């Protein structure tokens, strides 16, 4: 069955841009407040959990790329159709599309919640959701190359936020990190599991792979991007552990933003307000990439034009943001995304890789016997 993605060279993008795509897809709303969730399990060894989660992403990304390499120029949707056949394959594709949609929704809803909690308690959800969706739709209609461009600018323009960690570092104590490895392996792994929601996003490689120009360098840039993400998460986590005391960190909902609330410049009294606004640039690639990934799946199932799809999709998401209102509901969605994401992104690719190898061996044998006879 040949269902590989056929592309013209000018639909593709340069491989080095993959670094920005993956990095920007990973960093989003999770980083604003992942500390306390990880800290709950691993306590002051939470930074080790971050490293463990980072290592896991490398292993999974390795499997993903190996699987994709077998097929040359195809995405996850095509691979699933090929391995499981039309019906089961399409069923799994639908699940993946659903996953992309709820991930999209959760990013959008979380960001709206942050704006409402920090900046404008009076602003209505539908307005923020409509504005953000319109921007996303606009970017989406520009095509993949525009989305990749947004990813690039999102990373480059947000670079200056990272050195801001130096300010809270002055109040951080090294003692808070000791004694190292007090938590047992179980709680460390549990902490790493809690990282799922924050570290998700690199699965975009499954869908974007056919669009990369020089496929040989894919793994290099993917792993570099994962490394950069892990490094950022690790620094944020270590500064947070030093800056907050145990009880305070457990009760701070958006620890990264509160970390910034200490910073003030002569021309800018409250830095975190700027950071919250600026975060829109950071989540925009998240939204665009999930939307695009969902679209790539949908066109394998039904014949639909991009514009039509994006309007229907946005309308459903728009209605959903109105229904999910309270913090508890949002947290429930986040937990579901993390749970589903864990199996789809961390467990399933390894399984799929094994199946692909088996299938490859099987077909190779078959061809061999065919040739012999």
């Amino acid at each position, binding site marked *: 069955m040949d269902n590989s993605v056929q592309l013209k060279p000018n639909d593709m993008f340069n491989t080095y841009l993959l670094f920005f795509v993956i990095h920007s897809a990973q960093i989003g709303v999770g980083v604003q407040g992942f500390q306390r969730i990880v800290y709950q399990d691993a306590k002051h060894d939470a930074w080790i959990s971050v490293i463990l989660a980072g290592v896991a992403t490398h292993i999974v990304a390795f499997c993903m790329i190996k699987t994709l390499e077998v097929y040359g120029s195809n995405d996850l949707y095509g691979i699933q159709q090929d391995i499981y056949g039309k019906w089961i394959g399409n069923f799994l594709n639908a699940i993946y599309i659903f996953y992309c949609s709820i991930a999209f929704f959760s990013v959008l809803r979380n960001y709206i919640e942050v704006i409402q*909690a*920090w900046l*404008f308690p*009076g*602003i*209505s959800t*539908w*307005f923020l959701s*409509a*504005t953000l969706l*319109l921007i996303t*739709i*606009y970017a989406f*209609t520009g095509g993949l190359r525009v989305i990749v461009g947004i990813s690039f600018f999102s990373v480059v323009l947000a670079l200056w936020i990272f050195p801001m960690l130096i300010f809270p570092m002055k*109040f951080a*104590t090294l*003692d*808070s*990190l*000791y*004694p190292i490895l*007090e938590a047992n392996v179980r709680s460390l792994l549990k902490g790493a599991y809690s990282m799922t929601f924050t570290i998700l996003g690199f699965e975009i490689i499954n869908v974007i792979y056919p669009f990369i120009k020089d496929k040989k360098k894919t793994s290099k840039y993917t792993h570099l991007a994962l490394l950069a993400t892990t490094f950022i998460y690790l620094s944020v986590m270590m500064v947070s552990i030093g*800056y*907050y*005391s*145990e*009880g*305070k960190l457990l*009760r701070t909902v958006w620890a990264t933003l*509160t970390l910034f*609330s*200490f910073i*003030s410049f002569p021309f800018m*009294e*409250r830095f975190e307000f700027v950071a919250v606004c600026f975060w829109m640039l950071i989540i925009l690639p998240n939204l665009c990439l999930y939307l695009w990934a969902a679209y790539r799946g949908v066109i394998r199932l039904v014949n639909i034009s991009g514009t039509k799809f994006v309007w229907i999709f946005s309308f459903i998401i728009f209605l959903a943001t109105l229904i999910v209102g309270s913090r508890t509901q949002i947290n429930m969605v986040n937990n579901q995304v993390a749970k589903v994401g864990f199996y789809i992104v961390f467990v399933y690719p390894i399984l799929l890789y094994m199946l692909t190898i088996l299938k490859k061996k099987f077909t190779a044998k078959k061809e061999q016997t065919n040739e012999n006879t």
Partner: protein
Amino acid sequence: MKTLSFYIILLFIVSLLAGCVQTNILDKVGLVTLVGYDVGTEEKISTTAVVREVNPEFQSNVQVITTENKTSKGNRMKTNRKLSKKIMVGQMRVILLSEELAKDNIHHYIETNLENATVSNSLYLAVVEGQMAPLLEYKYNNIEDVGQHIYRLLQQNIEQEHMISSTLHEIAHDMYMAGDDIAMPIIKKDEELVGIAGIALFKEDKMVGRLSAEDSFFVKLIRDNFKSGIYETVLQKDNVPSDLLKNKPNEISLAFDAIRSKRDIKLVNPTTPEFDLNLKVKAQILEIVPDVNMDDPKKVAKLEKAISKNLTSDIIRIIDYGKSIESDVFGFGEKYRSSVRGSNLTKEKWHELYKNMKVNVKVDFVIMRNGVFE
């Protein structure tokens, strides 16, 4: 091009319809610069707010309003009812707590301010000796805006390292930390002046003791590092080295500045618990009465030793006081937690251990130089 203009028009319409967020124009809001909490006479909480109203034409005026209610937010609403302008807390710089309230429980007042996203984490906290309202409502001759004045007073002293730092972040940090207790400055009205009168020491969330403003130097020395502090001491006759001067004086007064200190705490015995506190202090002599010849390295060494001894006894006195009121503002508990594996330290557990704590103090004092005129 057609789609682009379509989106632009759509965005424009949506913004017009719903993009009007509540605005806060400076002329139309009252900025709360300081809030003082006290125990109310009728209701639970009495709040005194210093509100600064900015007028474009006139000089901005300052209003001090006291209200009583069951919650602090309720007080905010009550204050709002007495003002012509909407009050905002984004510019709040100081939170004051009355002594009576501090002795009861401050937990709630810190938490309610942490929950509010508009309250900055870098504002200062202090305890007020006596009642809150008289301090803030009094019309001082030379102080125009009492809120701003207290803020500057605290900021200046904390930045100059004359006082321990007490930002909301640090207070909350210590409050939620198992091995640490809160300490914050005490403010007092003195006729026409408002000044720092000492430091308040807390056990968990209750104020249990106080030290004089001079002693805050030692507290800071034990819990923190100095970058450039100042310190004044008197060597009594018994402590003065015998051959320092020809005629042995009754006492030697000394003043230092540009003090740099480094503290190093080590847990030597976790069961007692026993700590080694090593302090390295470097300073420059500012004043010495009577004059000592500083050319002689032997004499300098003797003087250094005498000062070290003096400092040691002061530090032991402060730690003993802290132990007697069971308030660990020095952070020994945090050191204990970070050194003992699986300690699962809680505040109660630490306070039990803290009573029997032993500290071996060792001060290493070095005189770097003595000004430009010998």
